[in-house]
């Protein structure tokens, strides 16, 4: 199963707005993607990870493009704009 290690780019970590943005994107992929074993489409589950800015997390899923899409969001500072 494709899986990628990536550092969290959002300054607040995987919390609040970044978690909501990632969950919404993951929910629309049509293929399950997990972050450290948590379903990426649930913002609540993402927030229970407590991952801070700079922490390394593991993004995994069956579909390589879906994993890449979530990796791109995790490493971006989603709080910046």
């Amino acid at each position, binding site marked *: 199963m494709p899986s990628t290690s990536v550092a969290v780019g959002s300054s607040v970590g995987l919390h609040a707005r970044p978690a909501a943005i990632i969950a919404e994107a993951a929910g629309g992929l049509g293929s399950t993607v*997990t972050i450290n074993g948590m379903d990426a489409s649930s913002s609540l589950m993402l927030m229970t990870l*407590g*991952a801070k800015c700079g922490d390394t997390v593991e993004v995994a899923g069956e579909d390589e493009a879906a994993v890449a899409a979530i990796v791109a969001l995790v490493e971006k500072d989603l709080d910046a704009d």
Partner: protein
Amino acid sequence: MSSGRPSGRIVTLTANPSFDRTVGLPGVLERGAVHRVDAMTSQAGGKGVNISRAAVSAGLGTVAVLPALADDPFVHELEHAGIECYPATPAGEIRVNLTLTEPDGTTTKLNGPGAEVTAEHLADLADTLVAHAVDGAWTVLAGSLPPGAPADFYATLVPRLRGLSRIAVDTSDAPLAALVDALPGSAPDLLKPNAEELASVTGVDAAALEADPGAAAKAARTLVERGVGTVLATLGSKGAVLVQADGAWFAPPPPTVVVSTVGAGDSTLFGYLLAEIRGLAAPERLALAVAYGAAAAGLPGTTIPRPDDLHPERVEVQPLDPS
């Protein structure tokens, strides 16, 4: 796999630990007969232990304080499971709770009493807990007290822990009654009664509380008015209500095939603590609590839900009228 650094640890007290042994019988249990058993399992148990296990499973650090010898198999089992243990002087051997199961589902339980404790044992246990509470975001006082312990053990422990960490209490009968009698001095940050326990300390009928979340919230509010920070009241298959000074919420569980409700209350409490440690708002804390409880009810025995068993997005939280 690397994960986020744990930003909050949970310290648990198990005052009356037990080895939970389950014996599976191939047929009907007969008095006076010799039985050959199919299977026998043994697990270190207790409400505090269950919460520490859930913490490990969710990636949180956890510390368990309990009366046991440092080299007791009970302590080894917990350490092997990733739980940091601080044993206090035990009064005797750890008790055994024996469950006999028959193929038709009939279950017979034989619960050991535990060794009688003295004031010295309890003082050592309390001192050990106070010394380690400062390491935790939360300290959880859960379960029954051993024989010989005064009913107000938790009620007198809460003021000693205040300021060291936040405090959660989940107990029943005389220890719960003593805690409520000593409010507001004994007020924990979180109290997690079930309907029966909430009924016993508010003088309301348990069935009425389980049937009506509004009535449960109203009863819980009387405890918040007496100083308890938050009341998380579990209503069995009906879900749970969360009441604090600034609001009240109700959440029914998502559709669940119930396998075993043993330990579901402990999982519910843990879900709340995890969400609180992660900085989530009250309705989200209730959603995660109910998701944890429902997931635990769908798993056999006291099995702790893993993150992929959880579906908080299927839990619908409803605000309740505060009056």
